[in-house]
Protein backbone atom coordinates (compact mmCIF):
# COMPACT_ATOMS: atom_id res chain seq x y z
CA UNK A 1 0.00 0.00 0.00
CA UNK A 2 1.22 3.49 -0.65
CA UNK A 3 -1.06 5.97 1.00
CA UNK A 4 -0.03 9.52 1.62
CA UNK A 5 0.52 9.16 5.33
CA UNK A 6 3.82 10.12 6.82
CA UNK A 7 5.73 11.63 3.94
CA UNK A 8 8.29 13.28 6.17
CA UNK A 9 11.37 12.97 4.05
CA UNK A 10 13.13 16.25 3.33
CA UNK A 11 12.82 17.60 -0.19
CA UNK A 12 15.58 16.41 -2.53
CA UNK A 13 17.38 19.59 -3.45
CA UNK A 14 20.92 20.71 -4.02
CA UNK A 15 20.95 22.26 -0.56
CA UNK A 16 20.21 25.95 -0.91
CA UNK A 17 21.67 28.44 1.53
CA UNK A 18 19.78 29.91 4.44
CA UNK A 19 18.22 32.65 2.32
CA UNK A 20 17.31 30.10 -0.31
CA UNK A 21 15.47 27.95 2.21
CA UNK A 22 13.54 30.96 3.53
CA UNK A 23 12.57 32.14 0.07
CA UNK A 24 11.74 28.60 -0.99
CA UNK A 25 9.46 28.06 1.96
CA UNK A 26 7.76 31.41 1.39
CA UNK A 27 7.20 30.55 -2.27
CA UNK A 28 5.80 27.14 -1.30
CA UNK A 29 3.53 28.67 1.31
CA UNK A 30 2.27 31.30 -1.12
CA UNK A 31 1.60 28.63 -3.71
CA UNK A 32 -0.29 26.51 -1.17
CA UNK A 33 -2.41 29.46 -0.09
CA UNK A 34 -3.26 30.27 -3.72
CA UNK A 35 -4.29 26.65 -4.30
CA UNK A 36 -6.43 26.92 -1.15
CA UNK A 37 -8.02 30.11 -2.48
CA UNK A 38 -8.84 28.26 -5.69
CA UNK A 39 -10.32 25.48 -3.55
CA UNK A 40 -12.79 27.87 -1.93
CA UNK A 41 -13.90 29.24 -5.31
CA UNK A 42 -14.07 25.73 -6.77
CA UNK A 43 -16.23 24.46 -3.90
CA UNK A 44 -18.64 27.36 -4.35
CA UNK A 45 -18.86 26.54 -8.04
CA UNK A 46 -19.76 22.94 -7.19
CA UNK A 47 -22.43 24.10 -4.76
CA UNK A 48 -23.84 26.68 -7.18
CA UNK A 49 -24.11 23.94 -9.79
CA UNK A 50 -25.90 21.63 -7.33
CA UNK A 51 -28.35 24.31 -6.19
CA UNK A 52 -28.82 25.88 -9.63
CA UNK A 53 -32.62 25.55 -9.71
CA UNK A 54 -32.94 27.03 -6.25
CA UNK A 55 -30.76 29.92 -7.36
CA UNK A 56 -32.95 30.36 -10.41
CA UNK A 57 -36.03 30.57 -8.18
CA UNK A 58 -34.27 33.11 -5.99
CA UNK A 59 -33.34 35.10 -9.11
CA UNK A 60 -37.02 35.24 -10.14
CA UNK A 61 -37.87 36.53 -6.66
CA UNK A 62 -35.14 39.20 -6.91
CA UNK A 63 -36.43 40.34 -10.29
CA UNK A 64 -40.00 40.50 -9.01
CA UNK A 65 -38.90 42.42 -5.93
CA UNK A 66 -36.92 44.89 -8.04
CA UNK A 67 -39.89 45.41 -10.34
CA UNK A 68 -42.05 46.41 -7.38
CA UNK A 69 -39.54 49.16 -6.67
CA UNK A 70 -38.89 50.36 -10.21
CA UNK A 71 -42.62 50.53 -11.04
CA UNK A 72 -42.86 53.31 -8.44
CA UNK A 73 -41.30 55.60 -11.08
CA UNK A 74 -44.21 54.83 -13.41
CA UNK A 75 -46.70 55.80 -10.73
CA UNK A 76 -45.22 59.27 -10.35
CA UNK A 77 -46.69 60.38 -13.73
CA UNK A 78 -43.61 62.34 -14.72
CA UNK A 79 -42.72 63.46 -18.25
CA UNK A 80 -41.18 60.46 -20.12
CA UNK A 81 -37.55 61.60 -19.85
CA UNK A 82 -37.80 62.26 -16.12
CA UNK A 83 -39.68 59.04 -15.55
CA UNK A 84 -36.89 57.18 -17.34
CA UNK A 85 -34.27 58.86 -15.12
CA UNK A 86 -36.24 58.12 -11.94
CA UNK A 87 -36.73 54.49 -12.96
CA UNK A 88 -33.03 54.11 -13.71
CA UNK A 89 -32.08 55.69 -10.38
CA UNK A 90 -34.31 53.19 -8.57
CA UNK A 91 -33.02 50.29 -10.66
CA UNK A 92 -29.40 51.12 -9.87
CA UNK A 93 -30.25 51.23 -6.16
CA UNK A 94 -32.16 47.94 -6.27
CA UNK A 95 -29.38 46.25 -8.26
CA UNK A 96 -26.74 47.32 -5.78
CA UNK A 97 -28.98 46.14 -2.94
CA UNK A 98 -29.18 42.73 -4.61
CA UNK A 99 -25.43 42.67 -5.27
CA UNK A 100 -24.65 43.54 -1.69
CA UNK A 101 -27.19 40.97 -0.53
CA UNK A 102 -25.27 38.22 -2.37
CA UNK A 103 -21.96 39.29 -0.82
CA UNK A 104 -23.35 39.37 2.71
CA UNK A 105 -25.16 36.08 2.16
CA UNK A 106 -22.00 34.32 1.02
CA UNK A 107 -19.88 35.84 3.76
CA UNK A 108 -22.25 34.88 6.57
CA UNK A 109 -22.54 31.45 5.01
CA UNK A 110 -18.78 31.00 5.42
CA UNK A 111 -19.51 29.82 8.92
CA UNK A 112 -23.25 29.14 8.89
CA UNK A 113 -23.34 26.71 5.97
CA UNK A 114 -20.25 24.79 7.05
CA UNK A 115 -21.63 24.45 10.53
CA UNK A 116 -24.89 23.13 9.12
CA UNK A 117 -23.05 20.59 6.95
CA UNK A 118 -20.70 19.74 9.83
CA UNK A 119 -17.54 20.49 7.83
CA UNK A 120 -16.55 23.58 9.78
CA UNK A 121 -14.04 21.81 12.01
CA UNK A 122 -12.23 20.32 9.03
CA UNK A 123 -12.01 23.70 7.34
CA UNK A 124 -10.86 25.47 10.49
CA UNK A 125 -8.18 22.89 11.26
CA UNK A 126 -6.76 23.09 7.73
CA UNK A 127 -3.55 25.06 7.16
CA UNK A 128 -5.30 27.77 5.16
CA UNK A 129 -4.83 31.32 6.40
CA UNK A 130 -8.04 32.89 7.58
CA UNK A 131 -7.46 35.85 5.25
CA UNK A 132 -7.25 33.56 2.21
CA UNK A 133 -10.23 31.55 3.42
CA UNK A 134 -12.46 34.58 3.86
CA UNK A 135 -11.11 36.47 0.86
CA UNK A 136 -11.74 33.41 -1.34
CA UNK A 137 -15.32 33.32 -0.17
CA UNK A 138 -15.63 37.07 -0.84
CA UNK A 139 -14.01 36.80 -4.27
CA UNK A 140 -16.52 34.17 -5.38
CA UNK A 141 -19.36 36.23 -3.92
CA UNK A 142 -18.26 39.27 -5.94
CA UNK A 143 -18.01 37.29 -9.19
CA UNK A 144 -21.32 35.56 -8.63
CA UNK A 145 -22.95 38.79 -7.42
CA UNK A 146 -21.77 40.70 -10.49
CA UNK A 147 -23.26 38.09 -12.84
CA UNK A 148 -26.57 38.13 -10.98
CA UNK A 149 -26.60 41.93 -10.79
CA UNK A 150 -26.01 42.18 -14.54
CA UNK A 151 -28.84 39.72 -15.28
CA UNK A 152 -31.14 41.55 -12.88
CA UNK A 153 -30.33 44.95 -14.36
CA UNK A 154 -30.84 43.84 -17.96
CA UNK A 155 -34.00 41.85 -17.23
CA UNK A 156 -35.73 44.70 -15.36
CA UNK A 157 -34.56 47.37 -17.79
CA UNK A 158 -35.90 45.30 -20.69
CA UNK A 159 -39.18 44.49 -18.91
CA UNK A 160 -40.01 48.08 -18.03
CA UNK A 161 -38.38 49.55 -21.11
CA UNK A 162 -35.84 51.84 -19.47
CA UNK A 163 -33.22 53.37 -21.70
CA UNK A 164 -29.70 54.39 -20.79
CA UNK A 165 -28.33 55.91 -23.99
CA UNK A 166 -25.40 57.64 -22.28
CA UNK A 167 -24.49 54.83 -19.87
CA UNK A 168 -20.83 54.28 -19.09
CA UNK A 169 -21.06 50.66 -17.96
CA UNK A 170 -17.30 50.21 -17.74
CA UNK A 171 -17.00 53.00 -15.17
CA UNK A 172 -19.97 51.63 -13.19
CA UNK A 173 -18.46 48.15 -13.15
CA UNK A 174 -15.04 49.49 -12.18
CA UNK A 175 -16.51 51.41 -9.28
CA UNK A 176 -18.52 48.40 -8.16
CA UNK A 177 -15.38 46.23 -8.28
CA UNK A 178 -13.53 48.79 -6.16
CA UNK A 179 -16.42 49.00 -3.71
CA UNK A 180 -16.46 45.21 -3.53
CA UNK A 181 -13.14 45.25 -1.67
CA UNK A 182 -14.81 47.28 1.07
CA UNK A 183 -17.93 45.13 0.95
CA UNK A 184 -15.79 42.02 1.47
CA UNK A 185 -14.13 43.66 4.47
CA UNK A 186 -17.50 44.51 6.02
CA UNK A 187 -18.76 41.05 5.06
CA UNK A 188 -15.84 39.47 6.95
CA UNK A 189 -16.98 41.36 10.06
CA UNK A 190 -20.51 40.03 9.70
CA UNK A 191 -19.37 36.48 8.90
CA UNK A 192 -18.19 36.15 12.47
CA UNK A 193 -21.73 36.59 13.79
CA UNK A 194 -22.80 32.93 13.32
CA UNK A 195 -19.73 31.95 15.34
CA UNK A 196 -20.96 34.00 18.27
CA UNK A 197 -24.64 33.17 17.89
CA UNK A 198 -25.24 30.01 15.86
CA UNK A 199 -29.00 30.52 15.95
CA UNK A 200 -29.38 34.17 15.03
CA UNK A 201 -25.98 35.27 13.79
CA UNK A 202 -26.69 34.77 10.09
CA UNK A 203 -29.84 36.88 10.22
CA UNK A 204 -27.91 39.67 11.90
CA UNK A 205 -25.78 39.89 8.75
CA UNK A 206 -28.86 41.02 6.85
CA UNK A 207 -29.54 43.62 9.54
CA UNK A 208 -26.07 45.04 8.87
CA UNK A 209 -26.78 45.06 5.14
CA UNK A 210 -30.05 46.94 5.67
CA UNK A 211 -28.44 49.49 7.99
CA UNK A 212 -25.64 50.11 5.51
CA UNK A 213 -28.05 50.71 2.65
CA UNK A 214 -30.50 52.89 4.53
CA UNK A 215 -27.78 55.47 5.16
CA UNK A 216 -26.29 55.15 1.68
CA UNK A 217 -29.08 56.71 -0.36
CA UNK A 218 -30.28 53.47 -1.85
CA UNK A 219 -33.50 54.87 -3.41
CA UNK A 220 -33.09 58.56 -2.59
CA UNK A 221 -30.38 61.19 -2.41
CA UNK A 222 -28.36 61.20 0.80
CA UNK A 223 -29.32 64.87 1.22
CA UNK A 224 -32.93 63.99 2.14
CA UNK A 225 -31.80 62.21 5.33
CA UNK A 226 -31.33 63.88 8.71
CA UNK A 227 -27.89 65.41 9.13
CA UNK A 228 -26.66 62.76 11.58
CA UNK A 229 -27.49 60.05 9.06
CA UNK A 230 -25.66 61.98 6.37
CA UNK A 231 -22.56 61.89 8.56
CA UNK A 232 -22.84 58.13 8.92
CA UNK A 233 -23.30 57.80 5.17
CA UNK A 234 -19.77 59.12 4.70
CA UNK A 235 -18.25 55.95 6.14
CA UNK A 236 -20.46 53.60 4.12
CA UNK A 237 -18.81 52.33 0.93
CA UNK A 238 -22.28 51.82 -0.56
CA UNK A 239 -22.82 55.61 -0.59
CA UNK A 240 -20.01 56.13 -3.09
CA UNK A 241 -20.83 52.99 -5.08
CA UNK A 242 -24.49 53.98 -5.51
CA UNK A 243 -23.76 57.62 -6.29
CA UNK A 244 -21.00 56.77 -8.75
CA UNK A 245 -22.92 53.99 -10.51
CA UNK A 246 -25.99 56.20 -10.85
CA UNK A 247 -23.96 58.98 -12.43
CA UNK A 248 -22.16 56.59 -14.75
CA UNK A 249 -25.32 54.89 -15.98
CA UNK A 250 -27.65 57.89 -16.16
CA UNK A 251 -25.21 60.64 -17.15
CA UNK A 252 -22.35 58.61 -18.63
CA UNK A 253 -19.82 59.92 -16.11
CA UNK A 254 -16.47 58.19 -15.86
CA UNK A 255 -14.69 57.25 -12.63
CA UNK A 256 -14.82 60.30 -10.39
CA UNK A 257 -12.00 60.79 -7.89
CA UNK A 258 -14.47 62.02 -5.23
CA UNK A 259 -16.03 58.54 -5.28
CA UNK A 260 -12.80 56.61 -5.77
CA UNK A 261 -10.63 57.88 -2.92
CA UNK A 262 -13.11 57.22 -0.10
CA UNK A 263 -13.61 53.70 -1.47
CA UNK A 264 -9.85 53.15 -1.55
CA UNK A 265 -9.47 54.27 2.06
CA UNK A 266 -12.43 52.19 3.28
CA UNK A 267 -11.10 49.16 1.34
CA UNK A 268 -7.68 49.47 2.97
CA UNK A 269 -9.21 49.74 6.45
CA UNK A 270 -12.19 47.38 6.21
CA UNK A 271 -10.35 44.11 5.50
CA UNK A 272 -7.81 44.28 8.37
CA UNK A 273 -10.55 45.40 10.76
CA UNK A 274 -12.80 42.61 9.49
CA UNK A 275 -10.05 40.04 9.98
CA UNK A 276 -9.28 41.30 13.48
CA UNK A 277 -12.96 41.06 14.40
CA UNK A 278 -13.14 37.56 12.94
CA UNK A 279 -10.06 36.44 14.88
CA UNK A 280 -11.60 37.61 18.14
CA UNK A 281 -14.81 35.73 17.30
CA UNK A 282 -12.92 32.57 16.30
CA UNK A 283 -10.91 32.61 19.50
CA UNK A 284 -14.10 33.09 21.52
CA UNK A 285 -15.69 30.12 19.73
CA UNK A 286 -12.63 27.94 20.34
CA UNK A 287 -12.49 28.95 23.97
CA UNK A 288 -16.13 28.12 24.60
CA UNK A 289 -16.48 25.11 22.30
CA UNK A 290 -18.88 26.88 19.95
CA UNK A 291 -17.13 26.06 16.71
CA UNK A 292 -19.08 22.91 16.14
CA UNK A 293 -22.54 23.69 17.19
CA UNK A 294 -25.61 22.86 15.18
CA UNK A 295 -27.86 25.87 15.13
Amino acid at each position, binding site marked *: *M*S*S*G*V*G*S*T*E*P*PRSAGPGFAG*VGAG*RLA*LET*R*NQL*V*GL*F*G*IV*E*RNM*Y*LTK*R*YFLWDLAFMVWTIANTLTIVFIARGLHLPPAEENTAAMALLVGATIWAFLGIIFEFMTETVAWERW*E*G*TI*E*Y*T*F*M*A*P*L*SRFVHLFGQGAFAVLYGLIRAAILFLAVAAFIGIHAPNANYAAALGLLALASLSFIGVGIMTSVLPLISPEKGAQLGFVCQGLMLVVSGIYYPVSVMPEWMQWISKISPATYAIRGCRNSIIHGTGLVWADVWPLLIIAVLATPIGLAVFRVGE*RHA*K*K*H*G*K*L*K*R*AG
Partner: protein
Amino acid sequence: MSFAPSTIDLASRLDRQAPAVEVRDLRKTFKRRDRKTSGRFARKRPWPALADVTFTIARGECVAILGQNGSGKSTLVRLLSTLLIGDGGEARVFGHDVDRESSTIRRLVNRVSVEASFFKKMSASENLSYAARFYGMTPRQTRTAIPEILTKVGFPPERRGEAMENLSRGMQQKVALARALLTSPVLLLLDEPTTGLDPRSKLEVQEFIRQVRAEHDATILLCTHDMAEAEVLADRVGLLDRGRLLFLEPVEDVKRRFKVDTLEEAFFAATGREFVAEEGDENDDEYREVFG
Protein backbone atom coordinates in the same frame (compact mmCIF):
# COMPACT_ATOMS: atom_id res chain seq x y z
CA MET B 1 4.75 7.16 -2.93
CA SER B 2 3.29 10.20 -1.26
CA PHE B 3 0.34 12.09 -2.62
CA ALA B 4 1.51 15.54 -1.70
CA PRO B 5 5.29 15.51 -1.50
CA SER B 6 5.96 18.81 -3.17
CA THR B 7 3.27 20.85 -1.51
CA ILE B 8 3.81 20.21 2.17
CA ASP B 9 7.20 20.95 3.60
CA LEU B 10 6.75 18.70 6.61
CA ALA B 11 10.37 17.83 7.20
CA SER B 12 11.31 21.34 8.24
CA ARG B 13 8.40 21.49 10.68
CA LEU B 14 9.23 18.32 12.57
CA ASP B 15 11.38 18.43 15.65
CA ARG B 16 12.87 14.97 15.33
CA GLN B 17 13.93 14.90 18.97
CA ALA B 18 10.50 15.83 20.32
CA PRO B 19 7.79 13.26 21.01
CA ALA B 20 4.89 13.21 18.58
CA VAL B 21 2.51 14.36 21.30
CA GLU B 22 3.38 15.80 24.67
CA VAL B 23 0.54 16.80 26.96
CA ARG B 24 1.18 18.22 30.38
CA ASP B 25 -1.46 19.13 33.01
CA LEU B 26 -3.95 19.90 30.26
CA ARG B 27 -7.24 21.32 31.51
CA LYS B 28 -10.49 22.22 29.83
CA THR B 29 -13.70 23.12 31.58
CA PHE B 30 -17.06 23.80 30.00
CA LYS B 31 -20.06 25.36 31.61
CA ARG B 32 -23.04 23.10 31.78
CA ARG B 33 -26.63 24.02 32.52
CA ASP B 34 -27.72 22.83 35.93
CA ARG B 35 -30.45 20.23 35.46
CA LYS B 36 -32.21 21.30 38.62
CA THR B 37 -32.88 24.78 37.27
CA SER B 38 -34.36 25.73 33.92
CA GLY B 39 -35.33 28.70 31.79
CA ARG B 40 -33.34 31.71 30.68
CA PHE B 41 -31.72 32.27 34.04
CA ALA B 42 -30.78 28.66 34.62
CA ARG B 43 -27.57 28.32 36.58
CA LYS B 44 -24.50 26.96 34.87
CA ARG B 45 -21.88 25.01 36.66
CA PRO B 46 -18.34 24.23 35.58
CA TRP B 47 -17.90 20.77 34.15
CA PRO B 48 -14.31 19.58 33.76
CA ALA B 49 -13.87 17.87 30.40
CA LEU B 50 -10.14 17.39 30.96
CA ALA B 51 -8.53 17.62 34.38
CA ASP B 52 -4.73 17.84 34.49
CA VAL B 53 -4.16 15.27 31.78
CA THR B 54 -0.51 14.36 31.22
CA PHE B 55 0.91 11.87 28.72
CA THR B 56 3.40 11.47 25.92
CA ILE B 57 3.14 9.63 22.61
CA ALA B 58 6.35 8.61 20.87
CA ARG B 59 6.77 9.11 17.17
CA GLY B 60 5.32 6.22 15.18
CA GLU B 61 3.37 4.90 18.15
CA CYS B 62 -0.34 4.03 18.13
CA VAL B 63 -2.04 4.93 21.37
CA ALA B 64 -5.68 4.27 22.17
CA ILE B 65 -7.55 6.35 24.69
CA LEU B 66 -10.56 4.53 26.03
CA GLY B 67 -13.41 6.17 27.75
CA GLN B 68 -17.15 6.24 28.08
CA ASN B 69 -19.21 8.92 26.38
CA GLY B 70 -18.51 12.20 28.08
CA SER B 71 -15.11 11.17 29.39
CA GLY B 72 -13.27 13.91 27.48
CA LYS B 73 -11.94 11.98 24.46
CA SER B 74 -13.35 14.30 21.82
CA THR B 75 -12.25 17.34 23.79
CA LEU B 76 -8.70 15.98 23.81
CA VAL B 77 -8.77 15.39 20.04
CA ARG B 78 -10.18 18.87 19.42
CA LEU B 79 -7.50 20.46 21.58
CA LEU B 80 -4.75 18.64 19.71
CA SER B 81 -6.23 19.60 16.36
CA THR B 82 -6.35 23.32 17.34
CA LEU B 83 -10.17 23.43 17.38
CA LEU B 84 -10.37 24.21 21.07
CA ILE B 85 -8.27 26.36 23.35
CA GLY B 86 -7.37 24.82 26.68
CA ASP B 87 -7.80 26.50 30.05
CA GLY B 88 -4.45 25.44 31.42
CA GLY B 89 -1.45 23.20 31.00
CA GLU B 90 0.12 22.66 27.62
CA ALA B 91 -0.02 20.38 24.61
CA ARG B 92 2.71 20.03 22.02
CA VAL B 93 2.72 18.22 18.69
CA PHE B 94 6.20 17.43 17.40
CA GLY B 95 7.48 20.14 19.73
CA HIS B 96 5.02 22.81 18.58
CA ASP B 97 2.59 24.38 21.02
CA VAL B 98 -0.99 23.78 19.88
CA ASP B 99 -2.15 27.23 20.86
CA ARG B 100 0.79 29.43 19.87
CA GLU B 101 1.91 27.50 16.77
CA SER B 102 -1.43 26.33 15.51
CA SER B 103 -0.71 27.06 11.85
CA THR B 104 2.35 24.78 11.92
CA ILE B 105 0.40 22.03 13.64
CA ARG B 106 -2.38 22.16 11.08
CA ARG B 107 0.09 20.97 8.44
CA LEU B 108 1.04 17.96 10.56
CA VAL B 109 -2.30 16.76 11.86
CA ASN B 110 -5.51 15.42 10.40
CA ARG B 111 -8.50 13.84 12.00
CA VAL B 112 -11.34 11.40 11.47
CA SER B 113 -14.30 11.92 13.74
CA VAL B 114 -17.33 9.87 14.58
CA GLU B 115 -19.57 11.78 12.21
CA ALA B 116 -18.33 11.83 8.63
CA SER B 117 -19.02 15.51 7.90
CA PHE B 118 -19.26 16.47 4.26
CA PHE B 119 -21.11 18.75 1.90
CA LYS B 120 -23.97 16.36 1.30
CA LYS B 121 -24.85 17.50 -2.21
CA MET B 122 -21.26 17.28 -3.37
CA SER B 123 -19.69 14.01 -4.45
CA ALA B 124 -16.94 12.12 -2.64
CA SER B 125 -14.49 13.31 -5.25
CA GLU B 126 -15.54 16.94 -4.92
CA ASN B 127 -15.41 16.83 -1.13
CA LEU B 128 -11.94 15.31 -1.21
CA SER B 129 -10.76 17.90 -3.74
CA TYR B 130 -12.04 20.67 -1.50
CA ALA B 131 -10.15 19.29 1.50
CA ALA B 132 -6.99 18.62 -0.53
CA ARG B 133 -6.78 22.18 -1.91
CA PHE B 134 -6.33 23.50 1.63
CA TYR B 135 -3.17 21.44 1.82
CA GLY B 136 -1.86 22.74 -1.49
CA MET B 137 -2.87 19.87 -3.75
CA THR B 138 -3.66 21.04 -7.27
CA PRO B 139 -6.36 19.57 -9.56
CA ARG B 140 -3.63 17.73 -11.48
CA GLN B 141 -2.45 16.04 -8.27
CA THR B 142 -5.90 15.15 -6.96
CA ARG B 143 -6.98 13.74 -10.32
CA THR B 144 -4.81 10.69 -9.67
CA ALA B 145 -4.52 10.81 -5.88
CA ILE B 146 -8.25 10.72 -5.11
CA PRO B 147 -9.16 7.54 -7.05
CA GLU B 148 -6.03 5.90 -5.67
CA ILE B 149 -6.75 6.65 -2.00
CA LEU B 150 -10.44 5.77 -2.40
CA THR B 151 -9.48 2.38 -3.80
CA LYS B 152 -7.14 1.82 -0.87
CA VAL B 153 -9.83 2.48 1.73
CA GLY B 154 -12.16 0.07 -0.07
CA PHE B 155 -14.44 2.66 -1.63
CA PRO B 156 -15.74 1.63 -5.08
CA PRO B 157 -14.11 4.11 -7.49
CA GLU B 158 -17.15 4.12 -9.79
CA ARG B 159 -19.22 5.72 -7.00
CA ARG B 160 -16.89 8.64 -6.41
CA GLY B 161 -19.12 10.95 -8.47
CA GLU B 162 -22.23 10.22 -6.39
CA ALA B 163 -23.54 12.80 -3.94
CA MET B 164 -22.52 12.03 -0.35
CA GLU B 165 -26.15 12.00 0.74
CA ASN B 166 -26.67 8.87 -1.36
CA LEU B 167 -23.87 6.93 0.34
CA SER B 168 -24.23 4.66 3.34
CA ARG B 169 -22.73 5.58 6.70
CA GLY B 170 -19.93 3.07 6.20
CA MET B 171 -19.09 4.45 2.76
CA GLN B 172 -19.06 8.00 4.14
CA GLN B 173 -16.70 6.96 6.90
CA LYS B 174 -14.32 5.47 4.33
CA VAL B 175 -14.33 8.78 2.47
CA ALA B 176 -13.61 10.51 5.80
CA LEU B 177 -10.62 8.24 6.29
CA ALA B 178 -9.48 8.98 2.73
CA ARG B 179 -9.80 12.71 3.42
CA ALA B 180 -7.54 12.46 6.43
CA LEU B 181 -4.92 10.33 4.68
CA LEU B 182 -4.92 12.30 1.44
CA THR B 183 -3.16 15.21 3.13
CA SER B 184 -0.24 13.13 4.42
CA PRO B 185 -0.59 13.81 8.15
CA VAL B 186 2.20 12.68 10.45
CA LEU B 187 -0.21 12.65 13.37
CA LEU B 188 -3.55 11.02 12.74
CA LEU B 189 -6.29 11.66 15.31
CA LEU B 190 -9.03 9.06 15.11
CA ASP B 191 -12.06 9.94 17.19
CA GLU B 192 -14.38 6.92 17.25
CA PRO B 193 -13.67 6.15 13.58
CA THR B 194 -15.68 2.93 13.54
CA THR B 195 -18.62 3.89 15.74
CA GLY B 196 -21.90 3.16 14.02
CA LEU B 197 -20.35 1.08 11.25
CA ASP B 198 -21.57 -2.38 10.36
CA PRO B 199 -19.20 -5.18 11.40
CA ARG B 200 -17.74 -5.61 7.93
CA SER B 201 -17.03 -1.91 7.42
CA LYS B 202 -15.60 -1.77 10.91
CA LEU B 203 -13.15 -4.55 10.12
CA GLU B 204 -12.18 -2.91 6.82
CA VAL B 205 -11.45 0.40 8.52
CA GLN B 206 -9.48 -1.31 11.27
CA GLU B 207 -7.48 -3.24 8.69
CA PHE B 208 -6.70 -0.03 6.87
CA ILE B 209 -5.50 1.64 10.09
CA ARG B 210 -3.26 -1.37 10.66
CA GLN B 211 -1.85 -1.05 7.14
CA VAL B 212 -1.16 2.65 7.61
CA ARG B 213 0.71 1.84 10.79
CA ALA B 214 2.70 -0.96 9.24
CA GLU B 215 3.86 0.88 6.18
CA HIS B 216 4.14 4.53 7.15
CA ASP B 217 5.80 6.76 9.64
CA ALA B 218 2.54 8.02 11.13
CA THR B 219 1.66 8.44 14.78
CA ILE B 220 -1.91 7.54 15.65
CA LEU B 221 -4.06 8.62 18.56
CA LEU B 222 -7.20 6.52 18.58
CA CYS B 223 -10.02 7.58 20.85
CA THR B 224 -12.66 4.92 21.21
CA HIS B 225 -15.02 3.20 23.57
CA ASP B 226 -14.48 -0.06 21.73
CA MET B 227 -12.09 -1.99 23.97
CA ALA B 228 -11.49 -4.81 21.50
CA GLU B 229 -10.57 -2.28 18.83
CA ALA B 230 -8.12 -0.57 21.19
CA GLU B 231 -6.58 -3.87 22.13
CA VAL B 232 -5.91 -5.01 18.57
CA LEU B 233 -4.73 -1.70 17.17
CA ALA B 234 -2.79 0.09 19.89
CA ASP B 235 0.67 -0.23 21.43
CA ARG B 236 -0.56 1.35 24.63
CA VAL B 237 -4.02 1.86 26.02
CA GLY B 238 -5.11 4.73 28.23
CA LEU B 239 -8.28 5.18 30.20
CA LEU B 240 -9.90 8.59 30.39
CA ASP B 241 -12.62 8.80 33.00
CA ARG B 242 -14.50 12.01 33.77
CA GLY B 243 -11.65 14.05 32.36
CA ARG B 244 -8.89 12.22 34.22
CA LEU B 245 -6.37 9.92 32.59
CA LEU B 246 -6.21 6.96 34.95
CA PHE B 247 -3.47 5.03 33.17
CA LEU B 248 -1.67 4.73 29.85
CA GLU B 249 0.34 1.56 29.34
CA PRO B 250 0.55 -1.57 27.19
CA VAL B 251 -2.54 -3.78 27.44
CA GLU B 252 -0.65 -6.63 29.11
CA ASP B 253 0.73 -4.27 31.77
CA VAL B 254 -2.79 -3.00 32.47
CA LYS B 255 -4.11 -6.52 32.90
CA ARG B 256 -1.17 -7.47 35.09
CA ARG B 257 -1.50 -4.36 37.25
CA PHE B 258 -5.19 -4.88 37.94
CA LYS B 259 -4.87 -8.68 37.93
CA VAL B 260 -7.67 -9.05 35.37
CA ASP B 261 -8.21 -10.78 32.02
CA THR B 262 -9.99 -8.05 30.06
CA LEU B 263 -9.94 -4.27 29.68
CA GLU B 264 -13.58 -4.14 30.83
CA GLU B 265 -12.52 -5.68 34.10
CA ALA B 266 -9.60 -3.25 34.29
CA PHE B 267 -12.03 -0.37 33.88
CA PHE B 268 -14.17 -1.71 36.68
CA ALA B 269 -11.12 -2.17 38.87
CA ALA B 270 -9.90 1.36 38.18
CA THR B 271 -13.21 3.21 38.53
CA GLY B 272 -15.49 0.91 40.54
CA ARG B 273 -18.11 1.22 37.79
CA GLU B 274 -19.26 -0.91 34.86
CA PHE B 275 -18.08 0.23 31.43
CA VAL B 276 -21.13 1.47 29.55
CA ALA B 277 -20.53 2.88 26.09
CA GLU B 278 -23.96 3.85 24.86
CA GLU B 279 -23.99 5.87 21.67
CA GLY B 280 -25.51 9.33 21.51
CA ASP B 281 -25.76 9.68 25.25
CA GLU B 282 -26.38 13.15 26.50
CA ASN B 283 -23.28 12.84 28.61
CA ASP B 284 -20.95 12.76 25.66
CA ASP B 285 -18.57 15.59 24.82
CA GLU B 286 -20.75 16.73 21.99
CA TYR B 287 -23.65 17.25 24.35
CA ARG B 288 -21.51 19.07 26.80
CA GLU B 289 -20.14 21.44 24.18
CA VAL B 290 -23.37 21.96 22.35
CA PHE B 291 -25.82 22.38 25.15
CA GLY B 292 -23.53 22.99 28.04
